């Protein structure tokens, strides 16, 4: 089968593929030296072994980045807090109140009982909302929902952006021009505006629907980046080699080119998540996003904006969590970028 393909298309092997010039030799020597320095040595081991080492190098570089490490820890703590405190779905949490419980009277005017010195949680650490709901439980619920939306947006936009970018970058021609013109059209529409138009009508369909829809409008920048990567990678020798042994386009895209673009995709996905948190809060704030009785951080801010004068803590807590999540995700993204792009790491040394 393979041999047949080669016989049918003998011109597939480009003659200029041979490293004849000094320049190319120098490149190969350089690569060899780099491999020797990083301790990978010549590829004696099997392919999966090499992949694992690559991952390890990236992880090592990532954890060298202090801010990224801190961001990862903070994000993990926030996720843990959000899902363990009030529980999720059927699983109960350790916090004594539920976000749906009403207390007829406000304890101490609903003031927060959290104190740093002496450290104590108190009965209602974040205070109570106007209707007497425990604000800690409410904030945790909003945190859960906002995190879920953000991750769905991150996943959906990454998949859509990667597929569109990969297909148009690999196949070129008519498919590329159609897809890229479509991307251009999407870019002419302000993100918040199109999200508001779409989300306004499906607000009732819950946070998953909202997340998917937001993902469907935020993929444009990733598609452009992935296309650019594919455009340069598809001209590389290893792709020619794969093609010459008869690999299908699908196999070349997924097994040969895509693993080489995992860096930009990961970074972009991370930043999409932090963008999604802000987008969701802005939408909910404008009343086009999550709708009551669902709760999200943006909706909490919107509901208690008027409380700013008298009970500012109702406005502070959700905002602080939004900033914390977004900040830690941004730092993680920065660390990932440095880890995947050795050129930048050298500049940081």
């Amino acid at each position, binding site marked *: 089968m393979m041999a047949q393909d080669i016989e049918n298309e003998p011109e597939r092997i480009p003659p200029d593929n041979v490293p004849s010039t000094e320049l190319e030799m120098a490149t190969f020597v350089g690569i060899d030296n780099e491999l020797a320095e990083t301790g990978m040595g010549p590829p004696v081991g099997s392919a999966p072994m090499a992949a694992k080492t690559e991952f390890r190098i990236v992880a090592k570089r990532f954890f060298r980045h202090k801010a990224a490490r801190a961001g990862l820890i903070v994000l993990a703590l926030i996720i843990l807090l959000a899902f363990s405190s009030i529980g999720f779905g059927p699983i109960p949490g350790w916090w004594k109140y539920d976000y749906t419980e009403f207390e007829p009277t406000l304890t101490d005017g609903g003031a927060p009982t959290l104190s740093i010195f002496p450290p104590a949680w108190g009965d209602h650490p974040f205070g109570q909302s106007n209707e007497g709901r425990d604000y800690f439980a409410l904030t945790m619920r909003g945190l859960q929902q906002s995190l879920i939306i953000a991750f769905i947006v991150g996943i959906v936009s990454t998949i859509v952006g990667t597929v569109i970018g990969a297909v148009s970058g690999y196949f070129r021609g008519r498919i590329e021009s159609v897809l890229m013109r479509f991307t251009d*059209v999407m870019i*002419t529409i*302000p993100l918040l505006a199109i999200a508001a138009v779409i989300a*306004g009508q499906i607000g009732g369909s819950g946070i998953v629907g909202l997340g998917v829809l937001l993902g469907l409008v935020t993929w444009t920048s990733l598609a452009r980046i992935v296309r650019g990567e594919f455009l340069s990678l598809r001209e590389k020798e290893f792709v020619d080699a794969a093609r010459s042994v008869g690999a299908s386009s699908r196999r070349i895209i997924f097994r040969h080119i895509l693993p080489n673009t995992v860096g930009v995709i990961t970074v972009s996905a991370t930043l999409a998540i932090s963008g999604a948190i802000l987008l969701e*809060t802005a939408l909910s704030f404008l009343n086009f996003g999550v709708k009551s009785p669902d709760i999200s951080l943006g909706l909490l801010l919107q509901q208690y904006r008027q409380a700013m004068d008298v009970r500012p803590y109702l406005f502070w807590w959700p905002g602080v969590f939004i900033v914390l999540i977004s900040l830690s995700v*941004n730092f993680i993204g920065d660390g990932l970028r440095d880890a995947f792009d050795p050129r930048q790491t050298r500049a940081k040394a």
Partner: protein
Amino acid sequence: MLVFVTRRLVVSFFILLASTALTFFLVAYSGNPLQDLLELRGPQRDAKVAARTQSLHLDQPVWIRYLLWLQDVGRCLSPFGGPCTLGSDRNGGAVLPQLQTAIGSTLRLVVVATILALILGVVTGIVTALRQYSTFDYGVTFVAFLCFSLPVFWISTLLKQYVAIDLNTWLNNPTMTTAGLVILGVVVGALWALVIGGDRRRVLIVFATAALATISVMYVLLVTDFFREPYFGILGIAVFGVAAAVGWSALFAGLHRRGRSVLISAVTTAVAGAVIALLLRTVIAEGDWLVILLVTLGLIAVGLLAGYLLGRPTQRLAMRVSALTGVTVALLVVVDQLLRAYPALFQATGGRPIKTTGSATPNLEVDFWATQLDSLMYLILPTLALMLASFALYTRYTRASMLDVMGQDYVRTARAKGLNNRTVVVRHAFRNALIPLATLMAFDFAAIFSGAIVTETVFGWSGMGKLFTTSLSNIDPNPVMAFFLVSATAIVLFNMLADIAYAYLDPRIRLA
């Protein structure tokens, strides 16, 4: 070039067509425009429903409505063929007049925010690149990431609550305790010490100088009642003008012997500018936009003349620096006039000069300058909220781009042939570091349009964002489409301009 622009215009036209079609269908299916009428009770219900159906063509299928809307837009492009209305809103009023007022106030917000963010971001980015891995660099990096992570409406509300109200209260009774003065001096001094950096001795000198200067300036301002009746006066204009002349000369020509002619012509311009401001003071005080324009042009002319006459042997550089000094002096004159208008405005607005809602004080009966100052006061907070994210973006990109350029071979060559640091940074590195920002600006403009929607809601501006959100909640398609039309056109145009600018700035790129 011409071929490129023509082709881009044609492509842009089709992109706009597709973009408006897409948004039109989305908006058309986003709800029933008759919703509020159907909930009415009473005899006129059916008549009202019929009237709105007729004016919005709701009896036609969506694609025909789109064609009708396109026809409305087309009327605005051709000189004949009916009045230009951009369609009518759900109450039958024309959209265009609403759009015109909205664009005006949004543009004021967006343009000021973009320009300020660009200038501050580029300057900060360059300084952080030159002081890579200093405390200042890390601090700015953190602040930039924080700005990226702030929800616009959250920070806007906090600004309203803490900055505006507290600052207004302080402006009503502008006094400071000695402790407050010392703290301010220490903070400002520490900031300057961080920015300038260097070894320990230099840091201490910078800190002491900046702290003392801040304390004494603040003391003088408080004693002379500057915060109640602020003004520079001709003396202030002259002093600041000469300082600017020295600063610009130091930046672009250096203060060594060869740059002396530049310095002389710039200082001459500053002094001549102050004299002109003195001679024309009554005209300027009663002036309007035309006067400002003429004075600015006149001062530029003075600068060019001074550079031409005194600038040998570096005539062209001297002319440029002197013209820049002329612009600076014109700016100082304007600021002086605005400051002089402050007491009148303070009276007229009941002692709360910094505004949190709206875009202009209604029924304000003051002169031209106080009116301008009034709208500036309204601009402060929304602009601040809007520019934070852009500022962070420009800072990061300028820093990265500057670091990239500083590592290039030609910069090393420039250093190797003995050029001083200023020349290398300003003449060789800085210009090339700015090139990638051209593309960034086009993208940022789109983002700022989104941001304006939120900012306008928080600060009660009746601009494009307000038009968009109210119309969208009311399910009123034509004003929403007007928003999309304007934003899409602006974004397409900006992208095209960015590409052209890129090719102009970087000769390696050819437009074809």
